[in-house]
C-alpha cells in the first residue's frame, strides 16, 4: 500500500520549489539574459549555506558560553537544548544570515569576474566550474566547518512554534515570499534599460561595446546579483535542512539548476520558475514514493541524474526555446505600438 502524506509533500515541495526557483532565476539572469555560462552556481549556493550555518550555530554557542564546536556531538546537543529558547534570537539570526549570505556570495562572484571577464565564455565556464570543485574540497578539509561531517544543529527560525506542520508551513510562506521578491526584482531588471543592455551583450558583445556600453562592468554587476541570490537560496536551504555538509554541494547540483533553466526556456523568468517547479516536483515525488516501491535493481538516484542529463540534451535538440519561449521586452513604447497595431488590424 502506498502511504502518502499529501500535506507534508506539499510543504516539502513548496520549500524546494522556492529555493530552486530562486537559483534558476538567478542563473537565468546570468546565462539567459547576459550569455555568461556560469558552471559554478553551486559554489555561491554553498557559500550562502555555510555562512548561514556558521553564523547561527556559533552565535548561539557563544551566547551560552559553550566551547565545543557545532560539529561535535556535545555542540549539537547544546544547540538542540538552547536553540529554541529565544524566538527573537532565532529569527534575528535567520534574517542576519540572509543579508550576510547575499553580500558575501555576491562579492565573491564580483571578485571572480576580475580574471574571467577578459577571456571568452569557455574560460569563464571552466574557471567557475573549477572554483566550485575547489570550494568543496576546501570545505572537506577545513576544520572549523566540520570537514566531511559538516555542521549540524542549525536552529529552525520557527523552532518556537510547537506544531511541526505549522512550523513547516510558516517556512514555506517565508521561502515563497522571498521568491516573490526575487521574481519581481528580476522582472524589473530585465524590463529596464539595463535589461536591454544585457540582451545586447548576449547577442553581440562587440556591438554593445561599440555603442558605448561598459561590457565588463555590466557583466560583473549581473554576476554580483546572481551570486547574491544563490547565496540567499543557500541560507534558506541550510535553515530548512538544519545541517550542511560538503557532499550537498557537488558539481551535479549546478546541472540540476541548468536543466531547470533550459527546460523552462532561456531568458524568461516565468520559464525559470516553471522549470524549477517541474524538476523539483519529480524529485520530491521520487523521494516520497521510492521507499514504498522497494526497487533495488537500479539505484533511483542514478536513474534520476541520468534523466536530468538526457533532459538537458533532448530539450536543447528538440525544444531549443524551452517550454515558454523568450518574449520581447515590455517597454511603454512597445505597449503603445502593439495597441496601435491591434487597432489598425481591427479597423480594417
Amino acid at each position: 500500500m502506498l502511504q502518502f502524506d499529501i500535506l507534508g509533500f506539499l510543504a516539502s515541495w513548496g520549500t524546494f520549489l522556492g529555493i530552486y526557483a530562486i537559483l534558476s532565476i538567478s542563473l537565468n539572469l546570468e546565462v539567459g539574459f547576459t550569455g555568461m555560462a556560469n558552471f559554478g552556481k553551486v559554489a555561491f549556493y554553498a557559500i550562502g549555506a555555510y555562512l548561514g550555518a556558521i553564523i547561527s550555530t556559533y552565535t548561539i554557542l557563544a551566547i551560552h558560553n559553550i566551547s565545543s564546536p557545532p560539529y561535535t556531538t556535545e555542540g549539537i546537543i547544546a544547540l538542540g537544548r538552547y536553540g529554541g529558547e529565544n524566538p527573537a534570537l532565532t529569527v534575528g539570526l535567520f534574517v542576519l544570515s540572509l543579508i550576510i549570505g547575499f553580500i558575501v556570495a555576491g562579492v565573491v562572484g564580483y571578485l571572480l569576474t576580475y580574471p574571467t571577464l577578459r577571456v571568452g565564455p569557455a574560460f569563464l565556464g571552466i574557471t567557475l566550474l573549477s572554483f566550485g570543485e575547489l570550494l568543496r574540497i576546501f570545505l572537506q578539509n577545513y576544520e572549523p566547518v566540520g570537514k566531511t561531517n559538516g555542521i549540524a544543529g542549525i536552529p529552525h527560525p520557527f523552532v518556537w512554534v510547537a506544531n511541526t506542520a505549522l512550523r513547516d508551513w510558516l517556512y514555506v510562506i517565508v521561502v515563497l515570499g522571498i521568491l516573490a521578491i526575487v521574481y519581481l526584482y528580476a522582472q524589473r531588471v530585465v524590463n529596464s534599460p539595463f535589461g536591454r543592455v544585457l540582451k545586447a551583450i548576449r547577442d553581440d558583445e562587440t556591438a554593445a561595446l561599440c555603442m558605448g556600453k561598459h561590457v565588463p562592468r555590466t557583466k560583473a554587476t549581473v554576476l554580483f546579483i546572481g551570486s547574491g541570490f544563490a547565496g540567499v537560496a543557500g541560507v534558506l536551504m541550510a535553515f530548512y535542512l538544519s545541517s550542511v555538509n560538503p557532499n550537498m554541494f557537488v558539481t551535479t547540483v549546478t546541472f540540476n539548476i541548468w536543466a531547470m533553466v533550459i527546460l523552462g526556456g532561456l531568458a524568461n523568468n516565468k520559464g525559470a520558475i516553471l522549470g524549477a517547479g517541474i524538476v523539483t516536483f519529480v524529485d520530491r515525488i521520487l523521494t516520497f514514493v521510492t521507499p514504498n516501491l522497494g526497487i533495488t535493481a537500479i539505484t533511483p538516484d542514478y536513474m534520476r541524474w541520468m534523466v536530468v542529463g538526457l533532459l538537458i540534451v533532448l530539450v536543447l535538440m528538440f525544444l531549443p526555446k524551452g517550454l515558454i519561449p523568450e518574449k520581447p521586452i515590455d517597454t511603454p513604447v512597445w505597449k503603445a505600438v502593439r495597441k496601435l497595431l491591434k487597432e489598425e488590424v481591427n479597423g480594417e
Partner: protein
Amino acid sequence: MINPNQILTMVHIGLIYMVLAVPLTLSYKTTKIINFVHINFITYGAYMAVFLYSVIGLKNVFVAAVAAFLLGGMMAVIDNVFVFEPLRRRGANVVILMIASLGLWIFYKYFLYSVVDAASRVIKVNLVSQLIRFENFPSLYVGGYVVKGSLLMTILFSFLLMGLLYIILQKTAIGKAIRAISDNPGLAEISGIPRSKVLNFMWFLAGGIASIGGMLWITYAIATPEVGDTLILQIFAIAVIGGLNSLLWTSVGAFIIAAAETIGMALLNQYFGVPTSFKPFITFSTLLTVIIAFPPLGAGGGLPYRFIKKRRGEK
C-alpha cells in the same frame, strides 16, 4: 629537499596529464566545443580496464589499451554524430554546445555508476574502488630507487600516443585536413575537405587517446567512477595554460601542473607547513595566474580591459 622519488612521481603524473589534456585541446581547437564528455572518456577508459582485469581476468595491458581506445573513440564519434553535428547545423552557439556536452557528461557518469553497481552485485566484487596492477611491466630497481612498472608503461604509452598524434597531424593528408578545419572551417569546406568525416576521425582520435590516459591513470591511482571528475581541475588548468590552442604548450602545461602538485606542494609543506590536502589550491591559483597574465585577445570576450583603459586614457 627534493628527493628523487618526487621527480619520478612528477614525470609519471606529468606524462599522464599530457595524454589526458592534449586531446581536449585538440578537440577544442578543431570544433570550438569545450567538451565535458572528455571526463567520461577518461572514466570509461579506466573502467574498460577494470572490467577486463577484474571481471574477465585479462591482465594484458595492450589488450586493455586497444579496448579502451575503441570505446572512447566510439563514444566521441556517437556524441558528434547524434548531438554536436545536429546542433551545429542548426546554428547553435558555443554556450549551447557546451551545455549539451555537460548534459551528456552527467548522463554518461551516472550510466557508468549504475552499470558498475549492477556488475558489482552480480560478480560480488566491489568494482567501485579497484586497484589495478598489470603484469606486463615489472618494477625496476636502479641504485636503491624503485622505478615502478606503471611508470615504464606510462612512458611507453605516452611516447607512442604523442608520436602517433604528431605523425597523423603533421604528415598525413587527414591530419592536414584537421589542421585546416581548425584554422578556418569555412575555407576548408570550400576547398573540398569532407568536414564531417574529418571531424569524426578527429573525435575518434581524441576520445581514444583520452581513454588510454584514463587507463594509465588508474595504474597510478585507485579506480572509482569519479576518477575523471577528480581530474577536472588539473586537466582544465593544463588546457588553459595551452590557451586551448597550442598542443605543445598544453604538453608543457602538463609538466608545470605536475611539478606544482608534487615538488611545489612538498616544498610548501616542508617550509610553510601547508597541509597536503590543500593541493588543489595550487592548481587553481596556477589557473587564475595564467588567465590574469595572458588573457587571450578578444576570444569571444570582447576587447580586453587594457585596450579599454588605453582608449580612456587618451581622452
